[in-house]
């Protein structure tokens, strides 16, 4: 990734009980008995915000936070299924009021116990507008959120009425509406508990966090490294098998890769694009190629009159069929992506292969026919807006070539200098025709890929897409009585998308990474994070 990498959403914690050992006997020394006291280093970037759980939404800070904190639940890195951590159980009878029971014995790194009030205080503080937390909208399901976080102006309360502490180990969460999969959201780092000491000096705390996670904070040398060590009193199911993690700051992935090859860095995030063709031969069985819960799409400006009429859906279906996903992922993207067949990424709970149907299959003849039937592309010319700092140029050009050659529609990329400029154009509805978009899972559930993106008026619905059928199906799914029913409900909602085609699914992201000869038992989860606590450092 170039210096200005695409913004990625870091989410939940990564850790696991059982892992597929991807490379126990690595190249040189073979498998040796691991030393649980030794630390390993991980490629990182300087956090953009203070280290507060609800303020870390980029990889640099998010990765550190998810190791320092542990919430009620997290996701098993090998299966992406939800599992209980601080919570003993989370019960609900109506998908609206959740009774949370905590396990006894959890401690913060400063020795104070983790009690119900630590969660409630943390959530109240994080949700309040005046505390400027970037992830505050995560709490919007909870009743009383509008009081601490009105759409504009100052909050009228500091506590959400939906949160009630029963005793040290019990609290209840009442939501404003029924959300059957609410517990899935609880794995996000914003829902971490905070120790009492935090509230005395939140800013100072952001430089020196105290959490309850598998690792405790040791030091932060700005722009150089963040050092953590394993927390002896950690109560989670994923006890660290190593002595700690050193997050080393790199400004380019090229530099990190050079260090990885010479064992000056142990595990990295993504190999640089320049090494995609060679990293498997460079690293041998220490190379990693794992699926990620993230998708790349081309979105359309349905709010423009040219694209609004219902028959233009055919044009979008046709354009989708004119893109040769297989060839582009193999050649231009060098196998770092996998062609998409649905709007939900592979490996996510509720993923249904082929939801896009024939429309995601390459068929130039059918493509031309559909575009003609739909009255053609406005002006017979398509522009795809993207940010030039994220390594997107190559594939946008390839997609355009594919469309031009197979349909005769003129197609051009419209690069914006950087990510924030492109986002400003997209959210400000200043885009003409089509734009690059994508979604990285917040939690591995299909609802996240659908409800947050395609619902009428959803925060990330940049298309102006509005389908009563979809909204109806989504609302019904939200009100289901179990997660399994929700998942099925959202699969029905996803089935509405092919007919309107607000966005063309292109491909799923993959983790292309590797590790040094000093460590073993490295596996990546669908968030693109290694299973931190399971990494073994050779003795």
């Amino acid at each position, binding site marked *: 990734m170039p*210096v*200005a990498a*695409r*913004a*990625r*959403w870091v989410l939940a914690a990564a850790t696991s009980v059982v892992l597929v050992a991807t490379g126990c006997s690595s190249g040189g020394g073979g498998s040796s008995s691991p030393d649980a006291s030794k630390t390993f280093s991980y490629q990182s970037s*300087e*956090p*953009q*915000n*203070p280290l507060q759980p609800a303020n870390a*939404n*980029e990889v640099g800070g998010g990765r550190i936070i998810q190791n320092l904190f542990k919430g009620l639940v997290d996701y098993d890195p090998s299966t992406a299924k939800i599992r209980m951590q601080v919570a003993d159980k989370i019960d609900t009878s109506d998908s609206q009021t959740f009774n949370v029971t905590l396990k006894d014995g959890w401690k913060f790194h400063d020795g104070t116990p983790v009690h119900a009030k630590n969660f409630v205080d943390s959530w109240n503080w994080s949700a309040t*507008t*005046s505390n*400027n*937390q*970037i992830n*505050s*909208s995560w709490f919007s399901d909870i009743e009383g959120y509008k009081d601490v*976080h*009105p*759409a*504009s*102006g100052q909050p009228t309360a500091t506590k959400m009425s939906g949160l009630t502490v029963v005793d040290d180990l019990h609290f209840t969460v009442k939501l404003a509406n029924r959300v059957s999969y609410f517990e899935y959201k609880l794995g996000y780092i914003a829902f971490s508990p905070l120790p009492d000491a935090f509230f005395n000096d939140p*800013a100072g705390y*952001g*430089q020196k966090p105290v959490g309850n996670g598998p690792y405790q904070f040791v030091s932060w040398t*700005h*722009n*150089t490294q963040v050092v953590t060590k394993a927390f002896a009193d950690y109560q989670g199911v994923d006890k660290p098998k190593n002595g700690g993690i050193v997050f080393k*700051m*790199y*400004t*380019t992935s*090229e*530099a*990190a890769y*050079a*260090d990885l*090859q*010479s064992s*000056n860095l142990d595990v990295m995030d993504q190999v640089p694009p320049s090494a995609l063709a060679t990293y498997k031969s460079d690293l041998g069985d220490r190379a990693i190629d794992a699926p990620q819960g993230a998708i790349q799409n081309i979105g359309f400006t349905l709010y423009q009159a040219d694209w609004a009429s219902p028959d233009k859906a055919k044009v979008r279906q046709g354009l989708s069929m004119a893109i040769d996903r297989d060839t582009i992922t193999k050649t231009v993207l060098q196998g770092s992506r996998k062609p998409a067949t649905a709007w939900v990424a592979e490996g996510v709970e509720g993923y249904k292969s082929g939801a896009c149907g024939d429309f995601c299959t390459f068929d130039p003849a059918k493509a031309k026919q559909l575009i003609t039937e739909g009255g053609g592309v406005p002006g017979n010319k398509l522009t795809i807006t993207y940010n030039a*700092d994220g390594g997107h140029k190559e594939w946008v050009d390839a997609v355009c070539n594919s469309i031009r050659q197979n349909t005769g529609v003129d197609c051009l990329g419209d690069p*914006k*200098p*950087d*990510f*924030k*400029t492109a*986002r*400003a154009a997209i*959210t400000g509805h200043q885009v003409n025709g089509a734009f690059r*978009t*994508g*979604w*990285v899972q917040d939690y591995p559930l299909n609802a996240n890929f659908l409800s947050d993106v395609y619902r009428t008026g959803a*925060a*990330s619905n940049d298309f102006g897409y509005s389908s009563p059928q979809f909204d109806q199906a989504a609302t019904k799914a939200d009100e289901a009585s179990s997660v399994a029913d929700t998942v099925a409900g959202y699969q029905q909602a996803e089935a509405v998308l092919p007919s309107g085609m607000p966005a063309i699914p292109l491909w799923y992201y993959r983790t292309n990474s590797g590790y040094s000869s000093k460590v073993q038992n490295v596996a990546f989860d669908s968030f693109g994070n290694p299973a931190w606590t399971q990494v073994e450092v050779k003795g």
Partner: protein
Amino acid sequence: MGSYVLRRVLQMIPVFFGTTLLIFLMVYTLPGDPVTALFGEKAADPAVVASIKHQYYLDQPVWKQYLHYMGNLFQGDFGTSFTGRPVSDIMANAFPVTIRLALLAFVFELVLGLALGLVSGLRRGSIQDTLVLVLTLVVISIPVFVLAYIAQTIFATNLGWVTPTVQDSRDLSQLILPAIVLGSLSLAYVARLTRTSIGENLRADYIRTAVAKGLPRRTIVSRHLLRNSLIPVVTFLGTDLGALMGGAIVTEGIFNVQGVGNVLYRAINQKEGPTVVGIVTVLVIVYLVASLLVDLLYAVLDPRIRYA
């Protein structure tokens, strides 16, 4: 002399105000909204955006922002970055690293550049001269990032003498390789400038006089020839010091040196006004001081130059 220096220092004041204002306006006109960008691909929450903008004074018109910034600056407050770190802290971290790197590169280009230029200037047309000319031509024609990757591959990956990137940016010995790469281009210029200058002065009257007086060759070269030939070289070196400090972004990126270049690049990307203005202001002061020193050095080198 004293009044000259005073005048020059006083001239720095309007330059200081002008540059801070210009840089401030430039950062302000960069496209995109920095606070919305903090939310990444997620939809930004308008209430939080407004609240953060208020915190960083970004909800005010640009002239008010500038006055606010300058007001704080005169109280020694460089502002705060989005990470919540004071900009003075960021600079206190980055500048020592960059100063080390720049000085190492500077010494390298000064010593080796002068030596090469002297050798080839004194022996024009010799094999040494041709060798220096070819070598410097090669260095000038290869972009610095290519040199950096070649050096990284040879000395780190193949020979294993050093680590591919700098593990501790404050360790001088680890900065040697990046410094050589960084200084190599200027080295070529210094060598060529010295060579030309020496070649011209060799034919000057005062050298003929010195030779006729029967002065030893060593004295002629060091006291008369080199001293008089240094003026163009010193002019170049003076401005180069500033360039080495602010312009090392590529080299710093490849060797992962956590210096000013990287911080500046990131700050511009994030449109972090206080950080950009703070760093650039310091760089401007470095330039101004360096050029003052160059002017004063002229008088030392050439006694005919007097400042009143």
